[in-house]
């Protein structure tokens, strides 16, 4: 995973100061949230279905090795090929080797978070290939030279005015702020790309163990075209995206679409079982790249539940932190609450230990999750791990060390409170502290700190008891 150049604090400050980003986030997260509520309401017993979906995911993970072997055997039996990749680099090399050995020059891609994770595009482009993203949002950010800021709406950080300007600059079309016109521009630009590419690369929403089928969903139909027109289809898939049977797949698709966009079913749900078999079109070769990249290590740990995620993006939209700072501030491919768990778990060496702090632990993410992943619990576990490994903030550690000493000796605690009270009196304005001295100024950077009350709770209680005794 790429390491961002700025610190998390700097990225957050940047995001909060970006007026356009605030407009874009306000316009969209709210719309996503209300559509999701309406979508789930159309299920007769949404809660029971979510419980069931969760049990399917956890069951699958609890014998993932068996299901992966079954999946591999079935993909192979219908004429596909399975490639296993331990890390991002190996996955990219597999794809690049396939492209080279088959004289591929042009590649069309449909949205794949796994390929973002491995930075496949850069690898293919450095390998001399033409790579074009076909999802409208991905196409926009590829033109802009950016990375996705939302799992299912990659260009959510851009206003329509910004997109219009981008298309005008890059494609030489007249400037417009009408999404319909912009969409028509992208349609005609991408037509030839689909039909001229020798290789189509897609993500995978679910792999079905019992049949070797790949389920891929899009609303635009870009994945359908990506896996139909080119001669070679390469599907990139995390090893955790397995469902045991077609019946299970039906349940997962039901909750995925509703949680992601509030639709009852995504417009194009394609089930691909092997390459073409005497059909007039469709790929002649099907390759599935199974990516580990830190996933297998999570099985049996406190954060193994994160592998149950079906990438619907509902927790991003529901998160009060994401709503304010957007996806890019996280600095990682996966953003929002699920990204704050997934990123430091997958990449233990990276600078990600601060991400689990970006949460108020309000539980909105757990509330909306279609498979009820307990994200707050895992955020706490990761925070604890950071402290134990000594990577946490030095001042926080010193603070808690002092607090522990004081809190276990009542006389010292009382003493401390009265000293701090005296100290704060020196700085307050109208009952508020506007700026705390070092090392605490970040407390007051965007909020005021109340002055400590003139009397402590224990003092109040003592006086009350005295008062009642007098009566």
């Amino acid at each position, binding site marked *: 995973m790429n390491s961002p150049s700025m610190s998390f604090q700097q990225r957050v400050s940047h995001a909060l100061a970006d007026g356009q980003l605030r407009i874009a986030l306000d316009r*969209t997260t709210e719309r*996503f949230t209300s559509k999701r509520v309406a979508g789930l309401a159309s299920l*007769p017993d949404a809660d*029971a*279905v979510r*419980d069931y979906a969760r*049990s399917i995911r*956890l*069951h699958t993970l*609890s*014998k*993932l*090795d068996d299901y992966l072997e079954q999946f591999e*055997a079935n993909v192979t*039996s219908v004429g596909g090929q399975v490639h*296993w990749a*331990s890390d991002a680099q190996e996955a990219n090399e597999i794809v690049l080797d396939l492209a080279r050995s088959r004289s591929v020059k042009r590649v069309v891609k449909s949205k794949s978070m796994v390929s973002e994770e491995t930075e496949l595009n850069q690898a293919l482009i450095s390998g001399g290939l033409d790579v074009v993203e076909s*999802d*409208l949002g991905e196409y926009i950010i590829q033109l802009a030279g950016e990375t996705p800021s939302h799992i299912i*709406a990659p260009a959510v950080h851009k206003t*329509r005015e910004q997109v219009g300007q981008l298309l005008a600059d890059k494609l030489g079309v007249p400037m417009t702020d009408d*999404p319909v016109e912009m969409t028509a521009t992208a*349609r005609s630009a991408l*037509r030839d790309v*689909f*039909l001229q590419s020798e290789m189509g690369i897609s993500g995978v929403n679910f792999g079905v163990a019992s*049949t070797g*089928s790949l389920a891929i969903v899009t*609303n*635009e139909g*870009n994945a*359908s*075209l990506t*896996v139909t*027109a080119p001669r070679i289809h390469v599907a990139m898939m995390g*090893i955790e995206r397995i469902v045991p049977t*077609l*019946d299970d797949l*039906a349940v997962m698709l*039901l909750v995925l679409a509703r949680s992601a966009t509030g639709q*009852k*079913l*995504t*417009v*194009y749900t*394609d*089930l*691909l*079982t092997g390459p*073409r*078999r*005497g*059909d*007039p*079109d469709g790929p002649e070769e099907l390759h599935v790249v199974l990516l*580990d990249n830190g996933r297998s*290590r999570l*099985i*049996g*740990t406190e954060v193994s539940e994160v592998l149950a995620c079906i990438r619907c993006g509902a927790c991003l939209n529901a998160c009060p932190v994401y709503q304010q700072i957007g996806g890019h501030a996280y600095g990682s491919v996966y953003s929002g609450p699920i990204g704050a768990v997934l990123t430091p778990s997958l990449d233990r060496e990276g600078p990600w230990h601060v991400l689990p702090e970006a949460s108020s632990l309000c539980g909105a993410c757990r509330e909306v999750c279609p498979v009820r992943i307990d994200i707050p619990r895992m955020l706490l576990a990761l925070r604890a791990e950071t402290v134990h490994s000594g990577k946490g903030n030095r001042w926080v550690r010193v603070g808690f060390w002092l607090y522990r000493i004081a809190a276990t000796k009542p006389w010292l605690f009382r003493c401390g409170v009265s000293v701090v009270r005296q100290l704060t009196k020196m700085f307050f304005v109208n009952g508020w502290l506007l700026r705390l001295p070092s090392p605490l100024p970040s407390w007051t950077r965007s909020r005021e700190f109340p002055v400590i009350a003139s009397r402590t709770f224990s003092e109040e209680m003592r006086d009350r008891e005295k008062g009642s005794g007098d009566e």
Partner: protein
Amino acid sequence: MNESRGAILERIRSGRLGAPVQSRLDPPTLIPTKDSSSLHDRFVQEAEAVGAIVHRSDRRDLTVETVLRILGDAGVKRLISWEPNDLPISELMKAVVDDGVQLVDPPTPANAETLSREWTAMATADAGLTGAVGGLADTGTIVLRSGPGRPRLTWLLPPLHVVVLHSSFVHPTLSAFMGECGELVRCSSHVAFVTGPSRTADIEQTLTIGVHGPKEVHILLVDHDCKSIEESEAAQAATVSDEPGDQMSKHDLVQ
């Protein structure tokens, strides 16, 4: 590659060590609509809610007439289609051609070099005409499958998609379809569940229709007798064995 395979599986196994396999809950009871007339009404209602246009017909000649009217209204000059025998009404294609619409040939798989040129020719088609192997009532979805004589690009490439669906193929839900027609998935390289026209909301969540696939989807929900290729297909699929290895060879035989 084999090295990674072994290492990945080994890591999963050591992580699993000592942990029991988690049991799954019983599936929640679904209450699918049994009564067929309300099933069809539901299908029409849901398909229209996602922006498809549904036409019902109980006579073969009415179905043909409706297809011709849709193509005529849209000014269709060039059409890509499934082969006559793969359409529910085999005389449909002849009627379309007699009406002055030009048929664009599907690509020939044998000729890989000229393939992209042929597809560019297909891309000039104004409409695609297909049958369907299923409908899903509670989502308004049509189910299509690839195969010889059934190019996938017919339902993906042109701006207009006309699909003829026999009402007996309408299932209450996706789960019901999977339960009854799972074999169709096993023996087709591509099964597509299409719910309304292509759409995107990638620019500020503003709904826009027809980004890559068709802008318009017309579904003919027909009640009359068809030369029902789908039914014979379903019957063939049902006899196919559960063994993936077996299934391939048997599948080749039925073709």
